[in-house]
């Protein structure tokens, strides 16, 4: 990165305009390490301008037909990876089967960012830790220290940290994990589907990456399958109601069958390096009626195992409150 604080325009790069996925994959493979894929550009263009990223080629995915738009089909909604967050927020085909996703999309940053930002970019965004993005040589940046752990840790992880204490910044990620959504990834060998949850990589496994996609792979679409009787909700806490990433967020999904909650998913955002599925909390509600007592049990279970640093213990009661509120909302 550039340490020059007077820099805020990019180095020259060549913008490549592939007409097909195959061409985009080929270009990604050809320029591996020297090229980035451009979707909404909300983060990439800023990174290029700060010269934190110095790619020589930018491969514009927006010129590829078919990557943008929502197709509500028989029992599922397919969301192209380049669909903007405001399209998702306002689409009736999403709101009904996937309320948590629409709510999450509507809580991202600002209207302008939602008009530009895509679901693919929102899912695959990089860590927002200010040490990692600043002039520090932290673990994630290839160093041997977590500066936040010894410095300012108010934004950092309660769960799942391993040397690095960054958090998953995405609002839509917990929602899609809670909805058991599937991600479709294209590479040279073709297209394969995986649970959205498997897109994300914890620092214990790879401390330099937030997701599992490699150069030469492109996230093409997300599929949310409808489930009869499913209810879902997303709630985000941030110090400011616009722009801010979540201090903590939660997505909850469950299906009511005969007064009992089934297939309960409780997924936390902003408190772990990946969208954090709290199975302990889920178990408190699974196959139970949603009552004040089961809600409280889940809220308490959600914070078990939290390992706060000096500055982020305040997130613990926030998580408890989030789980309580989200479950109350779907009850």
């Amino acid at each position, binding site marked *: 990165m550039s340490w020059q604080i007077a820099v805020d325009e990019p180095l020259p790069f060549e*913008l490549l305009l592939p007409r097909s996925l195959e061409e985009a994959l080929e270009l990604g493979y050809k320029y591996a390490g020297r090229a980035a894929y451009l979707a909404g550009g909300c983060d990439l263009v800023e990174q290029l301008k700060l010269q934190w990223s110095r790619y020589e080629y930018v491969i514009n995915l927006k010129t590829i037909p078919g990557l943008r738009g929502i197709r509500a089909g028989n029992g599922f909604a397919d969301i192209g990876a380049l669909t903007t967050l405001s399209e998702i927020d306002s689409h009736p085909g999403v709101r009904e089967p996937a309320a948590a996703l629409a709510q999450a999309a509507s809580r991202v940053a600002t209207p302008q960012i939602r008009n530009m930002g895509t679901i693919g970019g929102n899912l695959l965004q990089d860590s927002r830790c200010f040490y990692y993005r600043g002039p520090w040589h932290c673990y994630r940046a290839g160093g041997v220290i977590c500066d936040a752990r010894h410095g300012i840790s108010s934004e950092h992880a309660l769960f799942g940290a391993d040397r690095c204490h960054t958090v998953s910044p995405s609002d839509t990620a917990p929602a899609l994990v809670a909805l058991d959504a599937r991600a479709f990834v294209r590479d040279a060998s073709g297209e394969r589907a995986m649970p959205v949850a498997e897109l994300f990589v914890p620092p214990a496994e790879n401390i330099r990456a937030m997701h599992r996609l490699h150069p030469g792979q492109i996230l093409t679409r997300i599929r949310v399958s409808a489930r009869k009787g499913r209810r879902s909700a997303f709630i985000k806490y941030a110090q400011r109601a616009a722009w801010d990433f979540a201090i903590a967020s939660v997505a909850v999904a469950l299906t009511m069958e005969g007064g009992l909650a089934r297939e309960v998913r409780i997924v936390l955002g902003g408190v772990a390096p990946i969208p954090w599925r709290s199975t302990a909390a889920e178990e408190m509600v699974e196959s139970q009626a949603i009552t004040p007592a089961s809600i409280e049990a889940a809220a308490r279970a959600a914070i078990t195992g939290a390992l706060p640093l000096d500055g982020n213990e305040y997130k613990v009661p926030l998580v408890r409150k989030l789980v309580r509120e989200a479950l109350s909302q779907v009850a």
Partner: protein
Amino acid sequence: MGDDSELTRRSFVRGGAGFASAAGAGAAAVSQLRVLGGRNPERREAFSEVRFKLNGAVVALRAPHHRTLLLALREDLGLTGTKKSCNRGHCGACTVLMDGQPIYSCITLLLDAAGHEITTVEGLARDARPHPVQQGFMDRMGSQCGHCTPGMVLSGAALLARNASPSRDEIRQALSGNLCRCGNYPHEIESLLAAAGVPIPVVTIHETQGATRFKTISPALDARDKACGGARYSGDLGFHPDDPFPRPLIAKVLRCPYPHAEAGAVDDAQARTVAGYRGMITFRDVPGVSGSDRRCLNSKARYVGDAVAAVAADNQYAAQRALELLKVEFTPLPPYPNAEYNLDHGIRAIHGEPVAGFAGPQSADKPTVEFTRGDVERGFQQADKVIEGRYVTQLQCHMPSEPHCCTAWWQDTHVTFWDTQQSVFAARETLARALGIPAENVRVVCKHLGGGFGGKCTDTPGKTLYQCIAALLSRKTGYPVRLEFTMKEELIAEDSRNPFVFYLKTGVRKDGAITAIDCKAIQRTGGYASSGPAVVEVAGEGIINTYRAANYRFRGFSVYTNSPVGGEFRGFGHPQAVFARETHMDEVAEAIGMDPVEFRLRNALHTGETVTLGVAPDVPLGNVASERCLRAGMEAIGWSRWQHPSRKTGRLRTGLGARFSQEHTGRNASDGLVWRDRSGRYHAPLGSGNIGTLAHTGIARIVEEALGVSPGELDVTWADSANCAWDFVTDASRSVHCHGKAMYNAALDLKHQLSKGGGPRADFTPYCDPRVDVNPILDETTGKITRRPEPKLSRHTIELARRIVAEGGVIGLGWYAYNPRVQSWGASFAEVEADMETGQVRVVKLVGVHDAGRVIYRPGAEAQIQGGGIMGLGFAMTEELLLDPHNGFPVNQSLYEYRPPSILDLPELVPVLVEAPDEAGPYGAKGLGENPIFDAAAAVANAIFNAAGVRVRELPFTWRRVYEALKRERRLA
């Protein structure tokens, strides 16, 4: 500064480690600097042609691929209505519509506009008639500084296109991606309601007789230019054929990456290979300035971001490239970021002595400022209770919508600065002194300024003087040179609000009488003094005045640290002091079981009682409105609902809090000049800056009223040091009161001259009322006070007057020196809801009651209360430039992480205007620009105590801080 002493010690016990980590980061940076050229050979720019529809017409441009839509619109197409602010997608000033949808043009590549339809603020009007949203912004004062207005207007127009009658909530959502640092959100919402045809209620004024003449409201002087994109700010110039200079060279500054380091020689051998590179200056090319511990470029860098060298090139890309290729060796030195530590240990490493004094660095045992009256020890003996507390304030950054931007053009012996400048005359003197040339050879112009807040006031040589960098590069290259700050430079490298630690101790009798106040204040001034010592002085005034105390002592220390430099910022020490004192006084009232407002009323000063000010030790107060302000606020918030926190239960608890203060409304002298030309038109060339308070509109109304002419007969111009009446500075809430009074006097003089026949005039003695207009003046460079100065115009005004007379104009001349008895009064009341489980605090309502003396331009006055309240809410709730506790590196280096309030973060804001006129002001008017920023912090702190039973004595009140206070006091639910 917020570190407790234990943490501080730890970081210094581990000084080696902290230092090593600083060196590590820097070493990496330096090694990267060295290898850049090799690893990143010059890249060829890739060009393409792009076609898109722009404001209804197809345009075709050939541009490099890395060009953003924002730069193309502004620089290639001259559409500078689209503003450049953060340039990173964190503010919304660059908003344009793409196919009708608002987007940020600063993070959109130009090539991505291909085939789309782009609408800018210039494209909204139809048949030269403003768009209804633009008309709404003109009619409802939707603009303060106006820099965020084009983006707001476009977001608003997009909303109305899909929803013709939006609710307030829908409007707030639609505008939530547009930051307004003036905090003009309530008026922006009203502007859209007006555009949608919804009637809007008006604010009540607690007025006194005589107000009627200022009842009619018309749009502000430059409302149309701001709403329609025609207002050209400093950074907009150079892209239109009718601008005063051609496209300028772009300067970039090499800034030190360490908190404390010695820079070696700077080598630009590699930079010279960059096409378009024009030259470099370094600390070796910059002379020292007497009376300042700082130069515009420094070899010893004293904070992260300190300027070392600068380059100029044909465009920003080449300038950046050249900057990266400069070779410089930094020798890091141990950083000393903590003021209390530096004072306790007498750290001399930064400037030879630890304390910044008015006359330069001084020893740790000598306070920068000391005020005493009576004997505090005796006062404490007379007390029934003695209450002590420690209060901490944070580093707040101005973050104006328009970044600092100066274009300097050195032609022969003269330099012109088109600068982002509040105070063109003070800047002219200061810059001339720093450059070693006569002030007559310097001109400073600033027609539109995108927010100042004290951060763009070059009134002392202790400021950054970045303008000199542009001037010296212009002299070297022969071209106009522009230096425009990035958002990171704005956050880190420019002056900010000094953090303080206050140790307060107050003695009180059971009946509520204060027997003594003792305060030790430690201010972190950062790497340089800047305005730090004067800020300590004003903070001291804030601590000891307002309440009656026979005994007081204030000792304030401005302490050098290796951290960002603190200086002038709206309120100038008062916001920090008012937070500390008003939180403390709440604790004093609590200790004797008295209602906090009752306690304030009991101790508030009355008309004729004396206060101590830097300019004079014993000033008898003019028209005091303390009781009126407090009672109006009690009514507006419903203070009768107040209940002691011990009676509150439940997880969510509400609380009420109050704060009160006395506030200065000006300083120093102003000239006034009003004239009539041969055709019979009247002219008011205002010397005060156009910083968004709309003071120019207020002063124009004063002049019109005094002359008895209608608005159509008066031409108003402003802020050009070559063509305006001299004014000392534009800060200290002084424009309408001080410059307004001088212009009022000039108008009376003109009437008198015209009644005499208006012949040519050789005598340039200004008119003033010796009873109220002639007052002590403090010379801030010498510290000398002239108790009764001679009313005399500055040479600038006399020169201008001569020119006008020679052209056959009839002139009226006026003068006024700030009368320190004119203090205004303010109270605020907050209602909060606190979550006892999490520490989340929501401000539900904020009432700001302010004595404006006389309300001259009502929309402007209420907007100052709302906008100051909102900026104060940022100070109270979210804003802080965080420094790493070990080495003082700024950590949250972006605007979104710094967290200024968005339009979605507003409580119900209730402005209340009180009139307590003082004859010294024009029609009785007092200043109002700064006072509302005191509204939030203490009132919210006291409301949090009232709700949750815990004191938060450190700003800002983030969820984390309140949670930790609840935990410490064992009050968590």
